[in-house]
């Protein structure tokens, strides 16, 4: 069995997301043109949590989109094939202030792919990045604008963000990689 250490409990996760929600509204000076776009798969429920939080204190809803980045990956021939799922945008992204939401920022390659995927959908006014966990080891000049928690990690560890819709629980854990496989 893999070694596992809890980084965020369900409550801590909720608090982190609520804080991010406040920071997003503050940084954008309101909700005008604001749109949250979750990166599939776990970025999507996280974006919904943030939108719900915003709705609870601003009394207004922010549109939430779902972005599938698999067609834009730079490693399609070197890893097992990911399943492609639809990208769903409730409104156009043209001229919007888009906040990309993902669970973990690691190498930055997912974010790079997400930016490519986003650009093919239109031209947003500004794109920002919100992640629940920043674990370091960035390989691209990419940083997050909103971070739930910074977690120093080694390359032998995996950060697992769990959400009720997909995993049945709400928490973040640090897991020891069982067998070293190329990232």
């Amino acid at each position, binding site marked *: 069995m893999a070694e596992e250490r809890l980084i965020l409990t369900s409550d801590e996760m909720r608090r982190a997301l609520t804080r991010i929600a406040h920071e997003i509204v503050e940084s954008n000076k309101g909700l005008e043109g604001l749109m949250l776009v979750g990166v599939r798969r776990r970025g999507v429920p996280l974006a919904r949590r943030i939108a719900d939080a915003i709705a609870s204190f601003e009394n207004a809803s922010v549109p939430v989109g779902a972005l599938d980045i698999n067609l834009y990956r730079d490693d399609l021939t070197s*890893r097992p094939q990911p399943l492609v799922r*639809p990208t769903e945008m409730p409104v156009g992204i043209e001229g919007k202030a888009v906040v990309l939401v993902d669970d973990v920022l690691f190498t930055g390659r997912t974010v790079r792919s997400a930016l490519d995927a986003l650009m093919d959908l239109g031209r947003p006014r500004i794109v920002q990045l919100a992640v629940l966990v920043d674990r370091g080891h960035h390989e691209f000049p990419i940083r997050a604008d909103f971070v739930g928690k910074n977690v120093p990690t080694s390359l032998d560890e995996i950060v697992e963000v769990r959400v009720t819709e997909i995993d049945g629980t709400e928490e973040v854990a640090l897991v020891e990689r069982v067998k070293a496989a190329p990232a």
Partner: protein
Amino acid sequence: MMAHATEQSTVAAQTETPPRRRHVLDLDDFSRNEITALLDSAEAMHELLSRSIKKAPSLRGKVVLTLFLEPSTRTRVSFEQAGKMLSADVINISGSGSSAEKGESLLNTALTLQAMHADLIVIRSPHSGAPYFLARNLQRMGVVNAGDGRHAHPTQALLDLMTMRHHVGGLEGKRVVIVGDVLHSRVARSDVFGLHALGASVVLCGPPTLIPLDLLHKGEGDSLPDVSVEHDLDRAIEDADAVIALRIQQERQGAGMLPSMREYTRRWQVTEARYRRAKPGALLMHPGPMNEGVEIASSLAHGPGSQIEEQVTNGVAVRMALLYQLLTGGQEEAAE
């Protein structure tokens, strides 16, 4: 509702990853999971098709050849568009002007193309089994069957399944009628295998001269799984969830297989009256190209139940999903 179904099936498919596949020759070796995963992926591709920038970079640097040894615009263009939207380089070779017409054998043509480091060949051939022949002779190139003789047309069947899933929902326990020239129809054969995998039952309907003999006289073992044959369209269409009308070739009359197109139309055309015997809102499909006013009454073909144009769009989406599946993903190949 659709999005919900997609999300659910995606989760199911992820727990059981479909096997790596090099070729798509027919649907007879596709499991329910594999078809479901492919159709889910096709939904994503369908979304890409509706954007103003209809292009994603995932097949950049891949070379797809289409070798069409039989006239076809629809299928060839569909494959070409699918490849190009995913940024593959697509090279079209047609029967006329190619070495095929100068007497070079199919084998030598294919080996030459493989030596040019193409990744995938999409073949349409008048000869049943031609894609199998290529697949066993090509070590480095995948093969996709775009229709072989009267044998199979798996991508057409996949797009039919996608259209049906859209309009009918899950196909388990559903009743699908395929009417027309079943004997010569590669579409019918592949549809039957796909529908069988998804749990639908199929009724084949048409003149006795255009139904395979072995299905008329059961005994030696059936060439198609779980189909029934009913010559009377009024009876066959009763309570159908979907109706697929096949193209009827005018030549069949000349070959003595049909008394006349007039008689065919009278007995096997999907008319308004017959369509009303199907379930309310039953789906009406045709693989195209359609003879106006023969297989389907004109008023129906352009009416609300008809999804013939959507079939064309779904065709591109399904082929994108297929190309993506065949040309991306590494490492697991060695498992074969």
